[in-house]
């Protein structure tokens, strides 16, 4: 009871505690949702990836086990697909950035004086979302097929060999990935460039930096949050994409990416452990790559 004198001081930390309890309460629906629809499937996926085939069962019947060799097997079997996934995603991200940056710069900086033009251009960037991306990708398949006007014209102009194809090649897959993810690159870039304070650019040129150096030393670093956000929003879904590379769309037998292999293992080969192991590898690889990237780009204090 000697501590009774300290009762008031002890009571003080209570206030923030009560506050955090309310915060916790408000977070509850979100936490429940995450547990139900993110954590549970993730655990189930990890468990599946370690399953072993049932000795006496049919194809597609597996028992819970700790069969970590699944990971070794899929890496041995599918390493070209894994490399191809990240390779294609990387090239598509770089292309989307190269295409989107000037576009976003124009909308966000050069068109500031004409708000109407800005809005129209933004609507045009978002417009493709009004149609399902499956339909749009199918449309590209038609537009780029061997009998299409584009390809026959290119062949007529001798810009393409007479027996060459476009669909089914890596170029077609990368084209499809780039095309489909450009809005995800353009929009975050636009939001940072739209807020770019042009007085910094003036200060740069006042301090003897030529326009290229101003761009490299001032504009790019200041738009880094947009570049990081845009490249992540493009790279992550592109690495896991299985539509563009699919034989039904722009891909061919030699362009299969991880997404296609996972799909085939789950739905065709009924090799659930292999599919789950590949999914975990994809997820882990993306997490590591993104972690390194965010660290290296040094955007913590700009974000």
């Amino acid at each position: 009871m000697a501590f009774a004198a300290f009762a008031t001081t002890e009571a003080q930390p209570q206030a923030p505690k009560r506050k955090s309890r309310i915060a916790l309460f408000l977070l509850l629906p979100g936490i429940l949702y995450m547990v139900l629809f993110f954590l549970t499937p993730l655990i189930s996926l990890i468990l599946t990836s370690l399953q072993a085939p049932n000795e006496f069962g049919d194809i597609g019947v597996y028992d819970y086990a700790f069969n970590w060799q699944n990971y070794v097997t899929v890496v041995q079997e599918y390493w070209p697909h894994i490399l191809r996934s990240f390779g294609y995603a990387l090239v598509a991200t770089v292309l989307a950035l190269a295409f989107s940056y000037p576009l976003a710069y124009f909308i966000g900086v050069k068109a500031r004086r004409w708000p109407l033009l800005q809005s129209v251009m933004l609507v045009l960037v978002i417009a493709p979302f009004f149609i399902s991306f499956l339909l749009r990708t199918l449309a590209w398949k038609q537009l780029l097929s061997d009998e299409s006007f584009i390809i026959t014209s290119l062949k007529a102009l001798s810009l393409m060999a007479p027996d060459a194809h476009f669909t089914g090649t890596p170029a077609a897959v990368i084209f499809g990935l780039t095309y489909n993810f450009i809005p995800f690159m353009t929009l975050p870039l636009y939001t940072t460039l739209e807020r770019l304070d042009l007085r910094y650019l003036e200060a740069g040129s006042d301090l003897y930096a030529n326009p290229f150096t101003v761009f490299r030393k001032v504009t790019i670093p200041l738009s880094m949050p947009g570049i990081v956000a845009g490249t992540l929003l493009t790279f992550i879904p592109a690495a896991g994409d299985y539509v563009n590379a699919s034989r039904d769309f722009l891909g061919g037998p030699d362009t299969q990416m991880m997404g296609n292999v996972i799909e085939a293992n789950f739905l065709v080969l009924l090799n659930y452990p292999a599919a789950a192991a590949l999914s975990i590898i994809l997820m882990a690889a993306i997490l590591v790559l993104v972690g390194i990237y965010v660290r290296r780009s040094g955007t913590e204090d700009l974000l």
Partner: protein
Amino acid sequence: MSVSVREFAERGADLELVGIQKRFPGFTAIEELDLTIPAGSFFALLGPSGCGKTTTLRLVAGLEEPTRGRILIGGTDVTETKAHQRPVNTVFQSYALFPHMSIIENVAFGLRRRRIGDADARAHEALRLVELDHLAQRRPAQLSGGQQQRVALARAIVNRPALLLLDEPLGALDLKLRRQMQLELKTIQEEVGLTFLHVTHDQEEAMTMADTVAVMNKGSIEQMGAPEQLYELPRTVFVANFLGQSNLFTGRVAGTTDTAIAVDVQGTRLVVPTTRAARHQGEVTIGVRPEKVALHRDAPAVSPSRNVLGPGHVIDVSFSGVSTQYIVSITGVGTVTVFAQNIGIGPIASEGDEVWVSWDVEHGFGLDDDPADAGKFAADDDTHAIAVQRREALVAELEES
């Protein structure tokens, strides 16, 4: 490239603006501007907002292109030269420190662009000059406004430009810090001996810091000279009222002697020395500064060396400690403002008192403006109107705080 950025004058360079005109879509910022700023001087361009002073600065920096005219720095035509090739640096009103770089990187930026050796050592030296070397590794956002202002200054002077442009750099600081920075700037200018072109709307700042002040109005320079000269002998109604306050009277020249002219203002003769009057015949505007006017409770003896007006009535007294401002209404002439040093105890007259005002003939000045032309400013020239405006501004300021 007509000027190599390496060709920097050690002690600053002359700036010459010849027949500059700048039009923007919809309005003309600068109508016709000719200006020469000698090397090593501290030149202030003073004017109200929208008078074209910041545009002038941006033209010199190369951030805007003139519609017409030429800009010469150290005798070389730089009109066609791009901003990054001009031997000029600016301290921006917003400071514009790069937020993604540390203080030292900000200061060394210009040196690195010009590939000058030991950029870091020079940058540290510049930071020592503004007493901020201990914050070299911080980011601009971690510094106070006054510190950022000093970094902006260091970032500009470290390049030893031929010409340093200051765009109201003290505008965002509070009064005390402002006074301190004014002194520091002046000291630095004397130390490094660069040519400073300072743009401001603060007449006190311009007068305390600059050795030459140009008063700018509506895109052209009204008057230019040393601060004392500008204050004691304004040439236009605008300068007389923008740079301090003035009592102005309009009348016809009634007589001329070898040394003075007499002006008939509603029946009262006011005398101005010929050398201090710009116009010697016809309708003229003459004036006197309020602190040069004396207030009398009794009619003063008539003397050829003093102008006397009165009797009139005190219509307003405002006591500000050091001095008292009286506004005296004189029938037929208008109102006269008097600043009296508080040498007695409290005000010497109160509202409604009958008083006379007088001033030394030598203290009067005659303006160059044609009163007929100046007519359109009538509402502004009335000293009473200005006093009322000042009081309203003061009241508004008090209410705000």
